[in-house]
């Protein structure tokens, strides 16, 4: 090679840097904590404790309390082994001096009664669901809901069957330990959490009756889509008669008409694009300390080692919304997560058994907003004839008002017993109008047609902010369960 082009490239480099597209890391930083030597911090659940402490529950059944994790200097973090020997801790909730842990077969209350930093009391609160000895029968526990109940989602025995009591169900555990069968149709849960109103959601994983991973709204009495656990209606008189079975190789939108208990996924976490293994659900209640996405949900993925962002709305009484990519680059497969009121999002996980993009066997990490506002789609609302988008920053009117700036594709998945499935029934609509609001912070798109039940994949690659910046993430996937009437 001749020297001239090399020199030219060197001179050009500063110019290229100025024009570099925005990076996720400009807005959100990930801090990876060291963990104690010899411990496998396979984080399965995280809870906040008094005095700025955290509790981490692991797949190996340990519970660690963590101090100084909120400190700017991550080397100050300190760990104390609070309890060990539990059968996987995939749920932690703190109340009145006790820590409530969900393991394979029970919710138990742990308490350090002699104040030596280690639990002495391991009191069973509820052990009324079944466990058959199959490795797949995971149990994920929530924090206390607005009524003071705990929720537990119970994975099926494998992918299809329910060999023992209430596998494939969501249960509520009352403060007195009573267990209330609450929703059927669970397949393989990955996390459970609340929105800003205290409504309960869980994530399910791609598989039978699930073309992709999903975020689902747990409404008491509902059927969540996988009929593998229907036989337990016989033991749940409060749930009424068992629903009619879904037809195989149908569509969710069709079966909803037949099965009144069936609740469609609020958001499809589009397979391969958003993730392959949805896990924790965290709602940003930090009042702006985590950036501009207050009250939105942050959903992790074990396989992709990432976090996505979800905006939800209720249309015709059904929850639905949009998922955007948010932050990637975690070191292992995320499973547990929790945000404190300072807007610090703690996350951790393990790649054991399934592998993850992160590549490390386990991780415990912290996400913080850098204080710089990313140019992103803020909210996406369904309208009778299109969508209304709002943005975190004013948009460049010329690009925003041009319908050619946007493109959309609509698709769905088969609702079928077979594992997973491709994106099908493509519709490519016309974007006929793009009207920018007076404050330049929202755009109203008119789209023909909208397709009820389809995922509406919106690309906004050509859109610029008023500062001439592109979006950090120029794609979103809106699950249109319902088209609003007005």
């Amino acid at each position: 090679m001749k020297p001239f082009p090399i020199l030219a490239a060197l001179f050009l480099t500063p110019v290229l840097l100025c024009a570099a597209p925005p990076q996720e890391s400009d807005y959100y930083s990930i801090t990876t904590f060291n963990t104690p030597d010899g411990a496998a911090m396979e984080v399965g659940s995280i809870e906040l404790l008094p005095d700025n402490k955290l509790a981490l529950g692991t797949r190996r059944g340990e519970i660690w309390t963590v101090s100084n994790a909120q400190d700017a200097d991550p080397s100050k973090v300190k760990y104390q082994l609070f309890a060990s020997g539990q059968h996987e801790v995939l749920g932690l909730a703190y109340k009145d001096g006790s820590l409530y842990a969900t393991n394979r077969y029970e919710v138990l209350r742990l308490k350090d009664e002699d104040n030596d930093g280690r639990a002495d009391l391991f009191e069973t609160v509820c052990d009324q669901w079944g466990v058959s000895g199959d490795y797949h029968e995971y149990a994920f526990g929530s924090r206390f809901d607005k009524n003071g109940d705990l929720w537990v989602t119970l994975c099926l025995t494998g992918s299809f069957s329910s060999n023992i009591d209430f596998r494939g169900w969501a249960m509520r555990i009352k403060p007195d330990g009573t267990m209330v069968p609450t929703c059927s149709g669970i397949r393989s849960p990955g996390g459970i959490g609340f929105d800003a109103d205290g409504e309960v959601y869980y994530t399910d994983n791609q598989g039978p009756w699930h073309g992709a991973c999903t975020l689902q709204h747990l409404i008491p009495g509902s059927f969540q889509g996988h009929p593998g656990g229907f036989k337990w209606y016989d033991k749940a008189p409060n749930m009424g008669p068992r629903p009619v079975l879904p037809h195989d190789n149908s569509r969710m939108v069709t079966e909803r008409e037949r099965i009144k208990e069936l609740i469609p996924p609020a958001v499809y976490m589009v397979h391969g694009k958003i993730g392959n293994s949805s896990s924790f659900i965290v709602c940003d209640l930090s009042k702006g300390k985590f950036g501009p996405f207050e009250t939105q949900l942050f959903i992790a993925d074990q396989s992709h080692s990432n976090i996505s962002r979800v905006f939800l709305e209720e249309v015709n009484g059904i929850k639905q919304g949009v998922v955007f990519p948010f932050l990637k680059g975690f070191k292992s497969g995320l499973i547990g997560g929790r945000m404190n009121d300072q807007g610090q999002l703690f996350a951790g996980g393990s790649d054991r058994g399934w592998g993850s993009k992160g590549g490390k066997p386990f991780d415990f990490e912290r996400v913080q907003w850098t204080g710089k506002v990313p140019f992103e789609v803020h909210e996406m609302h369904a309208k009778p004839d299109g969508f209304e988008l709002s943005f975190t920053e004013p948009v460049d009117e010329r690009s925003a008002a041009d319908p050619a700036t946007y493109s959309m594709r609509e698709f769905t998945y088969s609702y079928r017993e077979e594992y997973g499935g491709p994106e099908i029934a493509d519709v490519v609509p016309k974007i006929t109008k793009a009207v920018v609001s007076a404050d330049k912070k929202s755009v109203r798109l008119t789209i023909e047609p909208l397709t009820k039940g389809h995922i509406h994949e919106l690309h906004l690659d050509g859109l610029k902010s008023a500062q001439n910046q592109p979006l950090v993430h120029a794609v979103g996937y809106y699950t249109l369960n319902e088209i609003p009437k007005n």
Partner: protein
Amino acid sequence: MLKTSLVILTGLIAVGASAALPETVTIRTLAAQMRYDTSDVIIRPGAQVKIVFENSDDLPHNIVFFQPGTDVVAVSNKQMEKPEEALKRDWLPDDPRIWLHSKLVNPKQKDELTFTAPDKPGIYPYVCTFPGHALTMQGRLKVLAPGPGLSDLKFQVYLGDWKKLPDFKSLVPHREGDLPGNLVELKFDDYRNQFGVVYSGKLNAPTDGDYTFSVAGDDGVRVLVDDKKVVESDGIHPSSEIRDGKVKLSAGTHNYRLEYFQAAGEAEIYAAWRGPAFTNTTLSKWVHPQAAEGSKIPKKDDSVGMPLVVGTEPVIYRNFISGAGNRGIAVGYPGGFNIAWSADQLNLALVWRGAFIDAARHWIDRGGGHQAPLGYDVFKPSTESALPFAVLASPDAEWPKLEKDQRAAGYKWHGYRLDEKRFPTFSYEWNGVNVTERFDVEGNAVTGNGRLVRTLKLSGKLPGNATFRVATGNAIQPVGNSFVVDGKFAVAVEGAALAGKNLLVPVRPEIKLIYSWPETLPQHASTN
């Protein structure tokens, strides 16, 4: 995949290895398990070998090597006919088939044996000849004549997410290089998932004839010789099956190519060949557990993966435990005492001594299945799935038993509490009666006269005619204050009476049971 039980001196098998320096293999005894950590050692005929024998156990052990075909258990037991003479020889049998042995090595000591391997290929068994150890402390020294290995071995790494082997020739390698060890190996630390590797090298066939190529992989593998496919195991799968393919080769150099891809999870490659003039010769760094036998039946790997070590405090392990059900709570106590309590049957399910438990089954990969105790002398005081209490119609009525997956009616599990020494007290309810149960230890279960003391306390209104079952067995013999159950364990409890196969006590506010092992009872000393 764990593979501590097989050691191959790869340096010896690889072509061109110098015979000047002895190759070293370490064989350890496992603490409180009556086993060696290595059950198979493969060496080359005539090789210079050093065996370092380390005794990690709390008992004395030796390692004695015999000629092929020797019944090592019979030889070891025979010396018990004249124990005084055997004791003078430090329990080394007087047998002409012994060709190599260590001294009797005391706990935490070691011995070293340097020797020239036999010229005659064969399987030379080794064993600990200390009384009572031979049945489980065994292994095999395999003297095998190898064939040539690979030369000029190179690798090319490709990145991609595949479910089957791709056409690598149409892809651009991500990186490539030499493997100077000339063994197929996976040490690409930067990629754990979603990659592929093509290995290519030369093999020299010593003579014309039929050659067999073996391969196993996690995930897909294919072997090509002179660009023709000889054997493959494509798709995503564990590496449990070795596949063979045959090909006719002329004497001289041939091109060997192994294609491999990894989707996710475990990653392994095993490759070997054998020919008219030589035995199975490994071409990969990883040696498949079934490789030497050439067996096709997946064999359970019995090596130890992640033993949980008990120190000064008890260790608790709640998981799926063989014999203690799906809600098993194993507790390893200081002094080599272990129990598994079942929160399904609300009862003591297992007692054993020595090492506690191996967590590898549950802590590696997805973690399925039930784990058995790691130590030895396991006994089930009251059989599996049996409840502690019953109100029987007659003393010899059948004891109530839980069916598979059945919960115990009338019982409610309340959890446990740890005392200042971290000893748990289990707590449950039986028809309105609150029951607590704890275990204390006296002495040492492995080396001394260890006793395990189990105390049940009942409060509330005790039902009339209620019975607690201490034990059940085919042969329950009173010996002093204790009962010896099927020769496996002894239990002492006040007021116990035999009723058919069951040893029962009436329910009372406190029931104290003392478990010990028969050899620690004076009446049973020196019978074994």
